[in-house]
């Protein structure tokens, strides 16, 4: 198989696509946002339980490709327990990673499991798939109850 393709569909991504973590509606959520990508019809809801600017709990539900679903799943796993500020900072790093702007090997490594999305920058059409969950998280953190779109 093509190595670039394997780089995109890494085992971690396939695993999170198959068994997404935190894939449910959070009943006691106090923040929520809905995101969609009109280009492909991907759609997801992010639920947050935010206490004193700390993400106590987070979940998502939605429909999307392997990249968007696994990105949402990994994001929820990593953001849980982080402060709002830390989450926003990760979003920035992640965005730079998938758009190919983050090149420093140490900085990439510091992203932990999120580094598996590095291959996405080779696929401009798929950047939106990877970043949809993060854009939606950003809106949920700031509690604007609007629908967000990656278009």
């Amino acid at each position, binding site marked *: 198989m093509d190595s*670039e393709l394997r780089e995109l569909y890494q085992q971690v991504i396939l695993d999170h696509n198959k068994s997404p973590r935190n894939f449910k509606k959070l009943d006691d959520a106090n923040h929520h946002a809905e995101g969609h990508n009109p280009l*492909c019809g991907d759609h997801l809801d992010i639920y947050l339980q935010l206490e004193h600017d700390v993400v106590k709990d987070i979940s998502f539900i939605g429909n999307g490709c392997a990249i968007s679903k696994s990105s949402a799943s990994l994001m929820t796993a990593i953001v849980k327990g982080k402060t709002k500020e830390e989450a926003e900072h990760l979003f920035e790093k992640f965005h730079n990673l998938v758009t190919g702007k983050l090149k420093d090997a140490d900085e990439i490594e510091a992203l932990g499991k999120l580094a598996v999305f590095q291959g996405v920058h080779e696929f401009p059409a798929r950047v939106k798939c990877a970043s949809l969950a993060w854009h939606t998280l950003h809106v949920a953190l700031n509690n604007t109850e609007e629908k967000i779109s990656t278009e």
Partner: protein
Amino acid sequence: MLTDVKTLDVQKIRKDFPILNTLVHGKPLVYFDNAATTQKPLCVIQKEEEYYKTLNSNIHRGVHSLSQKATTAYEQAREKVLRFINASRLSEIVITKGTTDSINLVASSFGKKFIKEGDEIIISHLEHHSNIVPWQLLCEEKGAKLKVIPINDKGEIIFEAFEKLISDKTKFISVVYVSNSLGTVNPVKEIIQLAHSKNIPVLIDAAQAIQHFKIDVQELDCDFLAFSGHKLYAPTGVGILYGKEKYLEEMPPYQGGGDMIASVTFEKTTYNSLPYKFEAGTPNIAGVIGMGTAIDYLNETGMDLISSYEKDLFEYANTKLSSVEKLTPIGTAENKLSVFSFALEGIHPHDIGTILDFDGIAIRTGHHCTQPVMQRFGIPATARISLSFYNTKEEIDFTADALKKVFEVFG
């Protein structure tokens, strides 16, 4: 005496389309996104180049030679369109930017004059967004109602439901000939006959029909027919609105500007005659002339030959691809052409698209600008293979194998 049955020489045809030599990820391009746009034969590409090299000037304006020659070439393209769809009057061939522009023209202009509060407009559940949104905008503005012909599980319109939808309030019907997301061929002739028995005008969206079979507007008796050049092997940015003169005459201009006027003073402007009343501003002259060349090319190749080749190819694709394990075809209408939409168990269409691309196979994935169709089938998107007469059975075999590889990636 035996007569020779003419068949299409696909290898010869493929040589006419330079882009088919392209390599994608090191593999020969398999272009299966023809419903989005078709590739252009060399003669069309050369015609556009030739125009800019030898004829470029504005039309319907200058007395100088170049302008006259450009005007002649442009008007010849209109005549080619007229013959291609067997219209009877040049006044009925309006040149637009494409299908979307053509439909917006009718919704806006016909709507302004003839649609009133409480009136009803009928479309079908199979429509592309471009045959939904212009009518919604009109209905919102006028306080009219949009009625939708439902479809069954095969993706066919339910004709009996259509009969029940028609009432004294129905003032316009706009339906697609061939569905871009499912390939369903609608019984437009029957729709038109029933509508005409109640004096209701009908627009046919032929964006996915005009390139596949011969359309005769007089025989069909549609009141309007809309299509794009770029899906007819011609450049992007040009299209056609055929309209019956009796309606076009009564309809107010769509856009104001140059070319659509007879005389202008600050007190009163009088409009140009048909079809120019609807053609404001400088058009895509090279594109229109290129569309004429595309029509010549299709005529020389033979629309009947194209239709029979594509029918055979589609049947082959339908059988071959439907047999791929864990593949579900979406839309299984009895009368269907060119489009094979499908889902693979547990794999999102977007991932299918990316993986096939690595084998050089270009397919469309998404909702195909027909979100209501996706909602009807309870899916967010499909993967879509759409065929042209330059595609081959070998390409279909290759794709069927590539689809099996998608499962390898996903383990």
